[in-house]
């Protein structure tokens, strides 16, 4: 566990294998909510928060519940339950204590349960930081850190995309490719440029 590890996770989850542009996780929300910058930012911060929380909780569930009782095959079911209840909890807490914030991203919260980025990170964490049913050294810290970085990568892609789509509103796009098709083509070009980060070596 050293700074190099953290840097590798940081660069790889934000740039090289960006959740959206190279792993295609959370693509539905990326296309649906990126029409304007403000909601895009609200959605990304909600996703960032839920990803970090759920990567911490799913690590604990996996390490102290599923592995000791030899239930690793229940990973998918237990993780989705953890995420759903986590989202519900966050929604209730925000509604009670931060009504202003709730108005900004309250409506996006239920959507996050079925955002594949959240479950994707949880599954990736168990794939990357566990080996033969044993946690690798520092795997909890790495899992949470990877959650943070993936959330930042998601935010970055959302912000870039929404900025581009705000400009697209003013350009003359052929009737047939308006809205979704042009958004996908834009995403493709963004993904192409993100592939330029592939050459990073440590």
């Amino acid at each position, binding site marked *: 566990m050293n700074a190099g590890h953290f840097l590798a996770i940081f660069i790889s989850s934000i740039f090289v294998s960006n959740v959206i*542009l*190279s*792993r*295609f*996780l*959370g*693509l*539905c929300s990326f*296309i649906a909510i990126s029409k304007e910058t403000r909601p895009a930012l609200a959605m990304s911060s909600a996703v960032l928060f839920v990803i970090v929380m759920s990567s911490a909780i799913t690590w604990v569930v996996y390490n102290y519940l599923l592995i000791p009782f030899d239930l690793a*095959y*229940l*990973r*998918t*079911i237990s*993780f*989705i*339950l953890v995420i*759903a209840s986590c989202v519900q909890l966050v929604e209730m807490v925000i509604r009670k204590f931060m009504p202003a914030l709730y108005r900004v991203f309250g409506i996006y919260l*239920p959507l996050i*349960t*079925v*955002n*594949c980025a959240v*479950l*994707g990170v949880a*599954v*990736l964490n168990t*794939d990357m930081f566990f080996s033969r049913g044993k946690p690798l050294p520092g795997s909890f810290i790495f899992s949470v850190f990877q959650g943070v970085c993936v959330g930042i990568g998601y935010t970055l892609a959302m912000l870039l995309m929404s900025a581009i789509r705000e400009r697209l509103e003013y350009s003359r796009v*052929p*009737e*047939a*490719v308006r809205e*979704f*098709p*042009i*958004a*996908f*083509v834009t*995403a*493709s*070009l963004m*993904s*192409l440029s993100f*592939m330029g980060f592939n050459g990073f070596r440590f």
Partner: protein
Amino acid sequence: MKLLPEFLKGIIKQNPIFVLALGLCPVLAVSTSVKNALGMGAAATFVLVGSNCIVSLIKKGVPDTIRIPCFIIVIATFVTIAELVMKAYSPALNRALGIYVPLIVVNCVVLGRAEAFASRRTLPASLADALGMGIGFTLGLALISAVRELLGSGQLLGYTLLPGFQPALMMALPPGALLVIGGMLGFFNLLKGRKE
């Protein structure tokens, strides 16, 4: 009983990928080769059929407020079954599809059909709907992956179709997936516009 239309609508008229634009994350990620796409399509169809049937059977007993978590548990159960079967009988496919197998749980097609269709209709209708949607999903997936595999490697299902063709590596990489789906959605919109 009008089961045939329920079955057929998922294949073209309401194709989950091209018309409803649902469940795109796994579509883009696993469409690098036709073989992976068919495997993914089969797994998703199995989950769709299983969860639609169970949801339409239990719909009366599920309180309205917690129906989504209940549906997700049903779906997750079938995904786990699919995952275990795939691991046992086709480990190579399981490795190729990677984390996208457990991610069928959050595939919007599956939850969308459970919520929009199976939770209000009878068992036979839900079964027909799930089969049609599953086949439509698989067909869409196969189409996208065929384009990508052909342009990205000059092959189809591992057979070289275009000898001497310089493959465009980009089509096999993530940007190619987004480009193909964007182009196809635009193309289908164009066809739709013509007809109207």
